[in-house]
């Protein structure tokens, strides 16, 4: 069954070890690819630098959450104790900074945490039920002993031929096309199209 180019997610390649994955990632990064990812059963030290990751933007969401929390706390305390129902307790002022600070702190921290988690989910496009890489049968070994690089078709540099060549040059094996939609075939056991390098 021939698939259209449009439903292509990308090209995947397998690597034998974590070290070879790290070196391959450095080369892919040096070639200027943008939409690509590596997959390994465990975190690989130095992979962030090898892939050229810059600071994540999660901290921006944290900051927005924190400022929202601080303003919420101030509005809540000031409105309830100084405007809506002013009541003198223990001879203290209606509104004072001292008893407000713990509440400022708590709500700032709480909404910072919310902002961080939400920002993380937004930036990583989670939660999702499926990912195209799961359509590649070799990919199951990623939780065991498989190390993979996938160059995505959405990358401006991507083309089926040159990207395949790149993956071969950096030492990838079992280079395969990965498709967007789950495979619907009359033969469930049919292997994915595969090029042995």
């Amino acid at each position, binding site marked *: 069954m021939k698939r259209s180019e449009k439903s292509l997610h990308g090209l995947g390649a397998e690597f034998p070890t974590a070290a070879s994955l790290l070196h391959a990632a450095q080369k892919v990064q040096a070639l200027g690819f943008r939409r690509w990812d590596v997959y390994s059963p465990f975190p690989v*030290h130095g992979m962030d630098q090898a892939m050229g990751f810059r600071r994540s933007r999660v901290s921006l969401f944290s900051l927005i959450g924190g400022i929202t929390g601080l303003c919420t706390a101030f509005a809540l305390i000031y409105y309830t104790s100084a405007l809506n129902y002013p009541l003198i307790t*223990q001879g203290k002022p209606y509104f004072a900074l*001292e*008893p407000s*600070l*713990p509440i400022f702190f708590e709500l700032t921290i709480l909404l910072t945490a919310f902002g961080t988690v939400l920002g993380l989910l937004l930036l990583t496009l989670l939660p999702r039920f499926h990912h195209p890489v799961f359509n590649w049968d070799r990919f199951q070994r990623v939780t065991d002993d498989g190390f993979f690089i996938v160059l995505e078709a959405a990358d401006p540099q991507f083309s089926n031929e040159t990207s395949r060549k790149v993956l071969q040059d950096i030492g990838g094996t079992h280079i395969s096309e990965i498709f967007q939609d789950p495979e619907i075939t009359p033969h469930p056991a049919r292997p994915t199209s595969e090029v042995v390098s």
Partner: protein
Amino acid sequence: MSHPSSSPLPVAEKLRIEKLGILPVLFPAVGIIGLLSAFIWGLTSNPLQLAFSYLFAFSVGFTICAGALFWTLLHHALDADWSVLMRRILESIASCFPVLLLLFIPIVFLFAHELWEWMTADVAQDPLLAWKRPFLNEPFFYIRCAFYLLFFSLAGLLYRGLSMRQDEDGDPRITLRLRHTAYGFIPLFVLCLTFAGFDWLMALDHHWYSTMWGVYLFAGCAQSSMAILILTTNGLVRTGHLKGLFTVEHNHIMGMLLFAFTTFWGYISFSQYFLQWYANIPEETWFFVYRNTGTWFWFSVFLVVGHFFIPFLLLLTQPAKRTTWRLCTTAVWVVFMHCVDIYWIVMPNLQLQQSRHAGLPPATTGFHPHLLDLLALVGVLGILAHTFIWLLSRGSIFPPRDPRLRDSLAVTNWL
């Protein structure tokens, strides 16, 4: 970690005094001139002012040395690896305690009755003091002072001495023995620091009490001595020491700890103030009333902003901890604010004593700096800095045969 174990370990490195410029002459000079002029001028013209200025200067030196002892003990108790390279500096600061013991002698023989009102107050007129008499009496007070200073001196000398012995024989059992000793010394350290804080600073106003006092002083100790460690280490690197050994990762870790203890100080000092503000009990609130009178109010505001908010913001980002000049500028500021903190604790009590001597009810008038404050501070810190350089020049400036040295050199912060 991933550091190849085949790479050769660095050899012992001596302090090169000639590289330090005028410092080896400047420190003892300002120390002796500062102390001598303070004593001659103060004793002849204003002994009361001198007593408080001297206690202020002594407390600044004491807290910095106590913080260094804390970091040394913590390093061993936690079997830390990153700090091995800088540990000899901490050990040398902590070994200045015998000098502090000598510097305490004038307080005992000249200033005690000027400083602590409870020593001369009439117990019959003061039921609260009568209640505290079993603790606040002179014989017990001096026994306690001797115990604190002897413990700190022996602990500092023990840790430096055994570490220096390891430089010669490379015996890893010394590391184990120091670790096990640290488990026992940390509770003793906490008790000594807390009660020294009670006796020397809290008892300046013997009606006042705060259960947060010990930990409040401790926060300042740990923060200021970390700032001193940052400054001395980077000073050594700048003068050509620790070449190829000290990395930006060490600065990053020290910056993180400085940031952590800046936040800790803010948290503890707010908690201390907040509880007393809320409870509103007269014996407790006077401490803050005295420090909110006149220009002391702006001094207190400056303390909160300068001791917490400014270093907090200066240290918040990663580049702030990884850029040497930014980290060192912040460290200088932190040491300055630590002096301000101790000044804020000690000096309002001088005005209380002055008003009592004048037969008036105790009151503060505002922030009135005196040249004796500066002379005493420069004197005590100069003597301590000279002692530190002398101690550091006695052996290698880092422990070259510590079993954890390799880990310390390879330390990395995964960003």
